[in-house]
């Protein structure tokens, strides 16, 4: 029996046992220690024991309280601590139901602002319960972001953890500038998917001229936007090649030296001028230069 309280009393054991027997009190683990008689009684009998040995000639005291009473006494003595611990436990339990923080991790961490906005729109605001957050819809929206290949939404305590992974390719980033010609020539074709074409096919342009504006006219109002499209410009160029003679082989080598520098060559002609130790092959070519903006 564990819930027994140990009583120490300065009295002959026989006398004490006699009195306890008369009072119908069950006693356990009786032993003598010097002048003291030590015994155990059930918790319910403690008051009776003290009543029986109330006279001053008996020095009676509780030697060791029962486990139950010790726990109870400890709790009463540390009521503040117990209350604090309880409050903490309850607060920790309740806080687990609410979102206190949103964390965005993974290689798509640079999308944090967008991901957090999506999460908020789907009900994941601070101090809102987790139950109000529509996780599948948010995951779907995050996955639809450019470059995002993986999205996992989990919960760590009161923190909403969104893991976003992006693919190897850099997401497309629009250039907010007009399409500007980098060569001089005649426009053969111009296509403006977004924005406004600044020139027409057949127009002559110089390097630095705007080909497609980043915006559009809406009535009297000019609306800024992006330019997206391409242009093909017919250009001409002259190149020289030094060869030992004017043979077909030398002419072919002269044109081959142009390489891919001029893109699609539309027309070409050459002239040969004598030079010290050989000839100078002068090549005049017309080629098609292509330029684009915001096209992948």
């Amino acid at each position, binding site marked *: 029996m564990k819930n027994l309280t140990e009583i120490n009393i300065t009295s002959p054991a*026989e006398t004490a046992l*006699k009195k306890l*027997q008369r009072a*119908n009190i*069950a*006693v*356990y683990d*009786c*032993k*003598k220690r010097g002048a003291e008689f030590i015994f155990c009684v059930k918790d319910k009998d403690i008051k009776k024991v003290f009543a029986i040995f109330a006279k001053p000639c008996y020095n009676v005291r509780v030697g060791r309280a029962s486990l139950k009473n010790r726990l109870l006494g400890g709790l009463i003595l540390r009521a503040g601590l117990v209350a604090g611990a309880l409050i903490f436990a309850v607060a920790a339990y309740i806080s687990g139901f609410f979102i206190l923080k949103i964390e965005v991790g993974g290689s798509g961490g640079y999308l944090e602002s967008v991901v957090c906005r999506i999460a908020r729109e789907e009900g994941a605001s601070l101090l809102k319960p987790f139950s109000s957050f529509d996780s599948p819809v948010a995951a779907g929206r995050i996955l639809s972001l450019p470059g995002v290949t993986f999205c996992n939404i989990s919960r760590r305590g009161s923190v909403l953890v969104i893991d976003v992974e992006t693919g190897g390719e850099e997401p497309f980033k629009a250039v907010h500038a007009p399409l500007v010609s980098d060569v001089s020539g005649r426009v053969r074709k111009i296509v403006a998917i977004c924005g406004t074409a600044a020139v027409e096919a057949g127009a002559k342009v110089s390097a630095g001229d705007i080909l497609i504006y980043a915006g559009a006219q809406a009535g009297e109002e000019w609306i800024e936007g992006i330019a997206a499209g391409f242009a093909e410009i017919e250009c001409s160029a002259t190149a020289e090649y030094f060869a030992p003679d004017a043979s077909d082989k030398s002419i072919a080598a002269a044109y081959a030296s142009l390489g891919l520098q001029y893109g699609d060559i539309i027309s070409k002609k050459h002239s040969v001028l004598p030079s010290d130790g050989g000839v100078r092959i002068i090549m005049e070519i017309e080629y098609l230069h292509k330029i684009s903006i915001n096209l992948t």
Partner: protein
Amino acid sequence: MKLLQQILSELGADLSASVTLVPGSCCYLKGVKTILSFSPELITLSAGKLTLSVGGEDMQVGGYFEGDLLIKGAVREVKVEKSDRN
């Protein structure tokens, strides 16, 4: 246990008082009226017309309630004598 009770009943024994001894462990007594003396080596009890002396080593009262007494320890002997008071 039933057989023992049957035999004791046929013998006309007083079943209100009895001694059960577990050698080297404990001794259980029924019908104890009072404990006359108490020490680790000797415990003397009154059981109506009889006086019982329980001798042993490191004995202690394991429990005592309503005439039932459990003595823990190495009980060596139980001596039964007629009470002088009667």
